[in-house]
């Protein structure tokens, strides 16, 4: 039987002129860390006939990330979108995504990127797996089907680890999994020709406004400011050999060279 895979993706902010974050298709792009899980799922679709749905949470202007995933080969996109979701922290986000995943159940596999390029917490995949009581393996770079489950592998702290995982399961995919594919133009035309993206509100998910958004978030970012990162530039003089000697000396002093 073919696997039913869901990939969770995010539109990340790439530009915030004047420090103001406005999420739109001009200021956002598909999280680069979500491309490897998409690629993993697309390969399973092509090689093993898996079905692929992409899931995201964000304002309607961020639905384009789902269209982009559809342009690459996903069959269906779900955008969880509701004004009450604004201000959700990673736990509230996981709660909303978890509710959407339950609505999409039964499924076999949920894939996440290891983190997002903007928030950079790495929370959402693991938290969602915990909320749904799914087995989770993080930073996976190899997936093989074995019997009714999967064998997955990863490299951690210099060790190669191999796991057998029963399904349904959740995985976060290591950024080095493989080179993500480029988006074909015909795929983009196809993704917009026929509406394949559905929008689900909180009521569709059976959630209340208290469970998500700022009210449902135990954490809050109170302030963000640019870190004061002063760089010191020092010019070395002398012959090339003398300069190389000075570099080696500095690196040894700093404990970077033994």
């Amino acid at each position, binding site marked *: 039987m073919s696997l039913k895979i869901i990939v969770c993706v995010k539109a990340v902010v790439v530009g915030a002129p004047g420090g103001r974050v406005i999420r739109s298709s001009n200021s956002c792009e598909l999280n680069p860390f979500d491309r490897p899980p998409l690629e993993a799922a697309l390969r399973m679709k092509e090689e093993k006939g898996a079905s692929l749905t992409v899931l995201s949470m964000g304002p309607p202007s961020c639905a384009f990330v789902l269209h982009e995933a559809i342009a690459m080969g996903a069959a269906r996109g779900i955008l969880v979108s509701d004004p009450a979701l604004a201000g959700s922290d990673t736990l509230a986000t996981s709660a909303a995504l978890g509710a959407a995943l339950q609505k999409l159940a039964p499924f076999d596999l949920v894939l996440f990127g290891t983190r997002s390029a903007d928030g950079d917490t790495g929370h959402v995949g693991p938290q969602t797996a915990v909320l749904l009581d799914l087995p989770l393996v993080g930073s996976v770079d190899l997936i093989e089907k074995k019997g009714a489950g999967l064998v997955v592998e990863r490299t951690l702290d210099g060790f190669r680890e191999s796991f057998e995982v029963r399904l349904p399961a959740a995985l976060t995919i290591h950024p080095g999994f493989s080179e993500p594919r480029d*988006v074909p*133009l*015909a795929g983009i035309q196809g993704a917009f020709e026929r509406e394949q993206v559905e929008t689900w509100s909180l009521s569709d998910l059976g959630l209340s406004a208290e469970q998500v958004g700022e009210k449902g978030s135990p954490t809050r970012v109170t302030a963000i400011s640019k870190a004061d990162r002063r760089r010191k530039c020092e010019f070395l003089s002398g012959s090339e050999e003398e300069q190389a000697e000075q570099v080696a000396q500095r690196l040894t002093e700093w404990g970077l060279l033994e």
Partner: protein
Amino acid sequence: MDIFLSEKNRVVRQSVRRFCEKEIKPIAAEIDRECSFPWEVVEKMGRLGYFGIQAPRELGGAGLDSVSYVIVIEEISKGCAGLGLCVSVHNSVALYPILAFGTREQKQKWVPPLARGQKIGAFCLTEPNAGSDASGIEATAIRKGDHYVLNGNKVFVTNGGVADTCLIFARTDPGAGSKGISVVIAERGTPGFVVGDLEDLCGVRANPVSSIRLYDCRVPLENLLGKEGMGLRIGLTALDTGRLGIAAQGVGIAQAAFEEATKYAKQRKQFGVPISRHQAMGMMIADMATQVDAARLLVLRAAVLRDQGKPFSRQSAMAKLYASETSTSVTDMAVQIHGGYGYSKAYPVERYYRDARVTRIYEGTSEIHRMVIARSVLE
């Protein structure tokens, strides 16, 4: 700027930009220096649909709109003007006339390999004695039995060195003046089809611009596009679309130069501050930003009109004129902001400056475009 774009157009821009950053930008200086055509990248572009942007999906194309088309050309040209030129000419003046004037059989035969980038197209109009005045064409296509026999010398053929499918403008009726000109498709490899040496050009050097000579080159009668005598009409229709692509190419080159110049102006220090803080630099940066935006808006307007099926000839002429003039002035300012480094091949603005110059010459010179616009205004 992007308020005029649909979500689809934006996804096209982001996707093509990502591809060009990854695949084209890193090799652009080298392929310019070496005059080499990057087949490996071109094959990838073909698989992604860049060679059939507006061709119908059932014929192997992407089926996108004209706005997407100009976006793709702008983004590729931002990375490498020679490749932007290749894709623009292939899509607009080689592929599009077959879609617009070809029979069902011709479309089935020629379009899918062109749209998939498996074959590269070229538009062979210019001759040593015919350029702005297309009616001066001397090449001939004389009917003999079930073939046309082609003879002529086509020069400055964009993509000439790699083109498989060439639209040849030739006289089928040498005595009928401009009404005797027709378009016949000739394929590389046909006996008598000879590709000349590559031109050693100032810019767009990654494009294998060459001459194509035809010596008693026999092609079947079914390779006639449209009807005999329709050549100039086909050419002018193709050029309306073609100049939209070249306008987009100009915007892409200008955008690249603008980005490099602003980056440099913030980094380079003179008199104790980044040169961007000096008013003279600020004035240039303001002019560059304004000209690039204005050029892009003109290009988008013409593309939108085309998508709406409305006349866009005058607007595309204005877009081509303004974008190509902008391209040369913005790249000139980018070199000026870079000072001595701008004149060095160590920085990309030197290449942009060379690439921009030709946009005022090909697919209709700025002077011809001014004539077209003036005629349309005064009529």
